[in-house]
């Protein structure tokens, strides 16, 4: 019986976390109706998620596209099929690498900072202060972050797709082992990608954005235990976001194929 006790506790803890996360999500969705009166806050969050993350997201996407091109292109060249590099890089960036890599980057940069900021507010009684000021913390803090992520992450991903494809194209042309002119690369890429692929990629990004904000806010609200607790929340938000993004990516890919 002693063996069953920790198993039961773990199951209950997971069940409680899932229940609380669903409850928070419902509350955030409920407060969408208050979005028009929180536009300043939503745009501030959009600026943090989108504009401030844009340079690093572009840099990461550029190198991801370049690495993909150099790795795949040199292998394709062995069989004389290197012209297909445009289609491969394009499809990879639009369907998988653009949404997933950018979302992981946002989870690490923005999701962790959301957890830390809200966590610090929780520890230093600012959330309690909001409640005594009759201000709902979910409406004031979480809802603007969720809306910002839902729109800013797909926008970031759209940029990342373009920059990654351009990076791949530059390497394909410049690298002597591949030697595919940019116009050939571009033609192959546009022939392989259709609008549905782009929309699916952006939809994935929207879901991942929602996961990042949801996890960041949830972990922040559940923070306790001072500075150490804030640090642990930051780590927990990144790990949980990564995990949920990967699970969601598989499920979305499975059902969107």
């Amino acid at each position, binding site marked *: 019986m002693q063996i069953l006790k920790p198993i039961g506790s773990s199951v209950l803890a997971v069940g409680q976390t899932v229940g609380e996360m669903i*409850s928070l999500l419902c509350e955030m969705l409920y407060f969408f109706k208050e979005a028009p*009166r929180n536009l*300043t806050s939503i745009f501030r969050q959009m600026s943090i998620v989108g504009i401030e993350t844009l340079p690093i997201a572009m840099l990461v996407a550029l190198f991801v596209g370049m690495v993909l091109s150099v790795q795949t292109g040199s292998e394709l060249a062995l069989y004389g099929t290197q012209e297909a590099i445009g289609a491969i890089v394009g499809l990879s960036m639009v369907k998988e690498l653009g949404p997933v890599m950018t979302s992981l980057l946002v989870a690490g940069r923005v999701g962790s900072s959301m957890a830390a900021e809200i966590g610090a507010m929780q520890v230093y009684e600012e959330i309690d202060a909001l409640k*005594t*000021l*009759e201000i709902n913390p979910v409406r*004031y803090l979480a809802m603007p972050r969720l809306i910002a992520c839902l729109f800013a992450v797909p926008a970031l991903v759209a940029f990342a797709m373009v920059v990654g494809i351009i990076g791949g194209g530059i390497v394909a042309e410049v690298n002597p082992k591949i030697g595919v002119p940019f116009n050939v690369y571009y033609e192959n890429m546009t022939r392989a990608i259709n609008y549905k692929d782009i929309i699916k990629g952006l939809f994935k990004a929207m879901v991942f954005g929602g996961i990042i904000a949801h996890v960041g806010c949830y972990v922040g609200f559940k923070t306790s235990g001072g500075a150490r607790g804030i640090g642990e929340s930051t780590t927990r938000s990144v790990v949980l976001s990564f995990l949920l993004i990967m699970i969601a990516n598989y499920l979305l890919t499975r059902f969107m194929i």
Partner: protein
Amino acid sequence: MFSDDKSNNGGFLGNFWTKVAHGFSPAIIEGETCQIYHEGSNGVSIEIEKLNKSFGDHHVLKDIDLSIKPGETFSIIGPSGTGKSLLLKHIVKLIDADSGRIIINGHDIDDPVARKGASDFRYSMVFQSSALFNSLTVGENVGLWLREKRICAEVRIRRIIQEKLRLVGLEGKEELRTSELSGGMKKRVAIARSLAMNPDLILYDEPTAELDPVTSDELARVIMSLKDKVKLTTIIVSHDLNFALYLSDRVAMMHDGEIIALGTPDEIKKSQNPIVRNFIYTTTKGIQGEGD
């Protein structure tokens, strides 16, 4: 679970564009008057009956019975870890009790129907850590409730902010960041933020914690002057005995989750309860209570 929204902001479709306009501007209501904003405070009566709270096996609050009159300044003293702050958090509904009732102005705060009837009073709390929002300036902190509730024109909100900051001796400090403030100033901004609601009940959680004696004295004078100017019910939780005795109409002493003494400052000073006597002796650094 995460929040308890007491606000009612109306329907979505009815005033959508008004809300959109509001989303970009702090307030669009014209004129000098404020909606739902009574200028005077009335004070409230509080009855606490058999309140209990446990965390696991630790029984923190044990059958607390307390009665506080409208307009009274009431202090709860006692050593750290006796449940004083926890009791305050029950009164402002930040924590739910395991059993017992809290009745404010005749309405049980746990009864949703009765609570609606009691919504004509406002309460606010000054936290031990001040709990100011670092991303906002002093003025924005003080005006946060007014701007969020959107019940006044911006001109009027600015006037209220100036007025409340003047009450706590911080006039002209609206534009300062909270990081530029000393501990005592933060406490006073937190008081001004609470006063901006024109509360009928204000609760102070360890207002002198982390403050030097001079700043504590200044803070005591601020609270004392408020007591004269604004007729609100005040509850102070403190382990600073002198501060509590100086400000309060009545004082309760808590020990191990129970109220062991209750009376006027003079009655507390003359108490023959050994725990009270020991507390007075240790907190006044060896100066014996009256009656020794």
